[in-house]
């Protein structure tokens, strides 16, 4: 999540703590074996400006995994320009709510696999509403209905985010995510509230999502991605191909790495690690 050119930790859709430069965050996540990156600029639409192309160009430079870009996209012209800046997919939120035609138009030109519709859901009473993050109001439509409309219009993926769980480290909102999964046949990405690998395992076991998305917690520890994947791999098959794969490590009850035995560490001192040349 990017605000005014800086990666931020977002809490409850209203508090933002700075993390650093997008290009650096992308480079590290990439080295740690992330599968896909979604870069959402939350200030572009707010200020009614077009996407920050130069920031995206810099961020994509060392990104060798798919990069979806969102924020400030209101016309096909913006998408065309983004594709020339290193974006591979686009993510529509406000445009998907208020200008459904853009979904169809983008899908027709760039293919539906290129169009991600991101929906923010908020719990209201017994159900859920779509949340408008610009006006900070709840809309009458439910996330499931909106996802279904987006699919009809030509969206290729749905990113469902929970406003209540955002930055709370309380786990994914399984009920919200399931409500969307049940309504669409296109892939769904679950987002909001992840604290560690356990939350991702819960999400995979209790919903039919295609992917688990997290922002905040990946930014604060070294090798966060490969360590998380190594933990998930113990129960669910995920891609883990980084040189440091942590497959042999023990993981404790808090899903953190346990220290290796002293004898193992001593041996590691003499291990020669060759840099992989492609």
């Amino acid at each position, binding site marked *: 999540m990017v605000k005014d050119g800086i990666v931020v930790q977002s809490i409850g859709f209203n508090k933002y703590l700075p993390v650093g430069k997008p290009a650096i965050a992308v480079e590290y996540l*990439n080295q740690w*074996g992330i*599968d*896909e990156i979604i870069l959402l600029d939350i200030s572009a639409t707010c200020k009614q400006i077009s996407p920050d192309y130069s920031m995206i*160009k810099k961020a*994509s*430079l*060392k*990104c*060798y*995994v*798919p*990069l979806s870009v969102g924020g400030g996209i209101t016309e096909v012209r913006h998408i*065309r320009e983004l*594709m*020339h*800046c*290193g*974006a*591979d*997919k686009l993510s529509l939120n406000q445009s998907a709510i208020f200008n459904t035609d853009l979904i169809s138009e983008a*899908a*027709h*030109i*760039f*293919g*539906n*696999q*290129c169009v991600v519709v991101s929906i923010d859901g908020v719990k209201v009473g017994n159900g859920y509403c779509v949340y408008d993050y610009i006006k900070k109001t709840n809309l009458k439509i439910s996330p499931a209905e909106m996802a279904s409309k987006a699919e009809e219009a030509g969206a*290729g*993926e749905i990113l469902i985010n929970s406003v209540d769980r955002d930055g709370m480290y309380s786990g994914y909102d399984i009920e919200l995510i399931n409500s969307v999964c049940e309504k669409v*046949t*296109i*892939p769904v990405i679950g987002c909001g509230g992840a604290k560690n690998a356990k939350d991702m395992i819960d999400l995979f076991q209790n919903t*039919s999502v*295609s*992917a688990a998305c997290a922002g905040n917690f990946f930014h604060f520890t070294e090798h966060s991605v490969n360590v998380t994947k190594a933990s998930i791999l113990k129960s669910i098959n995920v*891609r883990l*191909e980084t040189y440091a794969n942590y497959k042999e490590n023990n993981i404790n009850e808090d899903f953190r790495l346990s220290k290796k035995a002293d004898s193992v560490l001593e041996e590691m001192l003499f291990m020669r690690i060759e840099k*992989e040349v*492609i």
Partner: protein
Amino acid sequence: MKQLKIVIIDYGVGNTHSVSNAIKHLGYKQLKISDNEQTIKEADVLILPGVGAFDECMKNLKDSHLDTILGEQVLENKKPILGICVGMQMMAEFSEENGIHQGLNWIHGMVKKLDLPKNFAVPHVGWNNVTIEHNEPIFSRNDENCNFYFDHSYYFHCNEEYVSAWCDYGVKITAAVQQDNIFGVQFHPEKSQTNGLKLFRSFFNSI
């Protein structure tokens, strides 16, 4: 390392910059993103990237006469070319995406909508292992069963003799095709981290 003249074909809708980032990372400096006839003629190798709907891509190629320019270079001069995703699909005779549309007709076959068993979402998005049928040349550095990033709703349906790799997503899907100097991959090597970079390296080293 041979410094090849590499040209990424720019036809308006591809993710050209992504492809260029990955190839530059491998140290190739004479890399251009272009739709210029002269530049394409002078290239040692061509890349036809792809993110887009088939008809829109073909229309753009035709509007800028790239279909004839490329046809001449690839079919007559036997210049090596790698098509990515819809760039590969355009090598087929025709596609059924948004109605029936003619392709470049370089490899016999047609592009069809993925018809999958229930529980398999379309588009096919994400990382999938591929089974390699022909290692040489583009997969020579990749392990058996390595994974690549896929993102598509349509696939290349063709005779097995052209298929150099396939993947399993409920059904057998063509992951890579080759015929003489013409190569195509359904997945995105520019977005498949180390495995994708290895593929680019193998392809360029084979030239």
